[in-house]
């Protein structure tokens, strides 16, 4: 069912030997397949996290880098971008119905593709959709999968995947039994590679012949809540010890005056005080601000995993033994709300 396209679009011929080199049945799986998650409606773009993964895949030395994207012909302008960021070949599962995310259909098509090209490694950004698609695909391929990795390297053909582990401030190195080896990669950890204009590659279009489409009754963009905490330079972050409306008001005011944003630990999301997009940590976002001000955050392993990359951490907590103290450049033993209010007052004063 597949048709073939060249770099300039459909109709051109494949480079000779292309299919033979990466074909079925080869015992030595080779190459890295990367899902290129596409954002935006009428003018699609490859997501920032996918560019980061693409760059990392090119750097790994796992062989050729295959990109995989789903959607209609509107994606064609993105081939060049994928090549310029490190993809050698782009597989475009071309079906307008797939411009919306359909995990079952994506999985079927990706499984067919993976069985055909036999990659050694399959990578995706650990975005909500990446973390939904990857395990389904892993199951379909009987592949090992490591979620939300913060480090990747090749050791003698094996992909070594690094992620923070529970039970203490541990980092675990994980390897897969068998091939392909799959990982989702935490957004914001690896830099996106600079574009290499003019870099060429091969684009191959395939159709989707299945019918595993969801019945999407309604879809609406969630209104942005005033920015992305993973890109903020200053974060005023609230935890269980400051999980109140009063604290939130003071924090918003402080953040506004410092040119930053308010983020939080899970306690505030659970209480409905802030949306999940503001949550820092393993089940929230990973952040890397210049200054991270933690008010009333005790510092669970999950939370610290998301804020380790902050350049400077200042924590206020009543409990001198709060785990966050070990990750704070400056620790203030005191009442989070009172200090936050005073900080607000100090920033308001004209002096």
């Amino acid at each position, binding site marked *: 069912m597949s048709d073939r396209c060249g770099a300039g679009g459909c109709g051109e011929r494949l480079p000779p030997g292309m299919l033979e080199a990466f074909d079925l049945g080869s015992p030595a799986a080779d190459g890295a397949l990367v899902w290129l998650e596409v954002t935006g409606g009428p003018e699609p773009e490859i997501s920032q996290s996918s560019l980061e993964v693409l760059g990392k895949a090119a750097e790994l030395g796992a062989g050729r880098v295959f990109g995989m994207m789903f959607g209609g012909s509107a994606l064609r302008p993105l081939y060049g971008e994928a090549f310029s960021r490190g993809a050698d070949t782009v597989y475009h599962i071309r079906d307008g119905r797939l411009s919306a995310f359909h995990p079952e259909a994506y999985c079927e098509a990706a499984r067919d593709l993976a069985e055909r090209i036999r990659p050694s490694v399959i990578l995706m950004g650990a975005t909500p959709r990446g973390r939904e698609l990857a395990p389904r695909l892993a199951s379909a391929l009987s592949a090992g999968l490591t979620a939300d990795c913060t480090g990747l390297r090749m050791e003698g053909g094996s992909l070594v995947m690094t992620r923070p582990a529970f039970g203490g401030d541990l980092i675990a190195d994980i390897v897969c039994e068998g091939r392909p080896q799959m990982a989702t990669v935490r957004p914001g950890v690896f830099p996106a590679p600079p574009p290499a204009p003019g870099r060429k590659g091969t684009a191959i279009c395939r159709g989707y012949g299945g019918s595993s489409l969801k019945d999407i009754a309604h879809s609406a963009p969630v209104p942005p809540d005033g920015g992305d905490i993973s890109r903020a330079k200053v974060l005023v972050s609230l935890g269980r010890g400051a999980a109140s409306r009063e604290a939130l008001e003071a924090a918003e005011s402080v953040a506004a005056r410092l040119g930053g944003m308010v983020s939080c630990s899970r306690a505030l999301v*659970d*209480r*409905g*005080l802030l949306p999940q997009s503001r949550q820092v940590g393993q089940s929230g976002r990973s952040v890397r601000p210049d200054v991270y001000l933690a008010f009333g955050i005790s510092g669970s392993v999950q939370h610290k995993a998301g804020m380790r990359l902050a350049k400077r951490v200042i924590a206020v907590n009543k*409990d001198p033994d709060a785990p966050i103290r070990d990750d704070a450049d400056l620790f203030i033993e005191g*009442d989070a709300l009172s200090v936050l209010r005073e900080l607000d007052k100090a920033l308001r004063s004209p002096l």
Partner: protein
Amino acid sequence: MLRATPLGPESPYLGDESKMTGSASLLLSPECEADVIEAVRRARESGEPLTVSGMRTGMCGGCVPMGGAVLTMERMGGIRGIGRDGRGFFVRVGPAATIREINEALRSGAPLASATPGAAEEMPRGAYFYPVDPTELNGSIGGNIATNASGPRTLKYGPTRDWVRRVRLVMSDGSVLDVKRGDRRARGRVVSVPMGGGPVEVRLPSYEFNTRVKNTAGLMSADGMDLVDLFVGSEGTLGIITEADLYLAERHPLISNIFFFPSDADAYAFVRDLRGSSADPEFLEFLDSGSLDLIRGVRERDRGFTSMPDLPESARSAVFMDLEMDGRLAGKYREIGVLAERRSGSLDDSWCGHELRDRERFFGLRHSVPRTVFEYVAGLKRTVPGIHKMATDMSVPLDRLDEMVAANEAAMDAHGLERVTFGHIGNGHLHLEIILKDMRDMEEAKIAYRELAAKAIELGGSPSAEHGIGKMKREFLLMLYGEAGVEEMREVKRALDPAGVLSPGNMAGP
């Protein structure tokens, strides 16, 4: 070293939770007993009195200075050791230790010193706790003793007084008095207090101090009374606490419960019946229909408020209790079920939870009412700028609670006042939160408050169950004890602090 710093007019050390503000020129901050003695020496020399101050969480201005210097005990905290005597384990603490700190230290694995040989090693960690639980979590233990603080769990465990083993004080002449329970008792109403110049014979007031209800009104007095009890609840007027020993209670796993009823009267009746049963709850707290409606109102705007399921529509009142999770729990529940059904409730019309994080939700709901009242009043302020609130603090014997409730309702209706009722129903101690919309309400409420204080006294209760007297409720001492009784209290003060250097203005003192 005794730290002395000038106090500006905006200093937080001039006020407490009562919103009352005083005046003082100097803040003295001792870090050891010698510093406290030095502060007393300076006060005697200069004639500038000291007002003893803890964490400033009081409700009646007890730590608000009336001139002179504020003596803040904040730097004298610390868990100093674990001891054991015939009654059991106790913890030795500095006056600025908070109950939260004490219980964290007892629960955690942090090393503790022994106050009596081997006690810290013998005490199974996590098995003991200090059981008195004032709503304010961050008050100092010195303040708790000085005000004989209590809380919901006073129902089962009594007030602070019952748990004080020993106090060490710096007296007004700079001498140190170290006294533990059993050391010194009064002969009749006369007790001998060792001071720097030799023992001082103190004649205790002749009134009958009411210990049948929660009561913080005035100095304790009883025939043959232990000297320790004179200092518990003396509001910093007789000596400055520099160390204390507190007995500990055994910790039990608990399950939190709420029972809903279709009317306030049903809940009152249920609580009265329950007192004769085997249920033996840790505390009994009450929310009336007005309180529940306030919570419903806030939740309409803010679904996350209180982190609880929606209150059942039929619920017009609620009774909270914690029960020990032991082999008798099922039997207790059966008995509670029978009593609840008698008052149109049932075990179906209830919630329970025993995991810590669920118990935290119960705790949050129980504590949400004062905050909800505050927010309700703050909301009304936008349209009625002068609005304000006032809370009563009166306890009566449980068998007179119906009469007190009736008096509350009658007084509120007669004076045309809006209110909600909640609180420590198991101790016959309900808080009436009166919402004041204008100056007329304020004046009416003051009259109603006095009427209700008189009623509480008439019913054998106390007009100041847990907030103390401080500088704001002195008129109740007159109502309770008359001019003669107040004068007897002043006699005690004069005997132990003739120069009047300690916390002037509190209780009966000048």
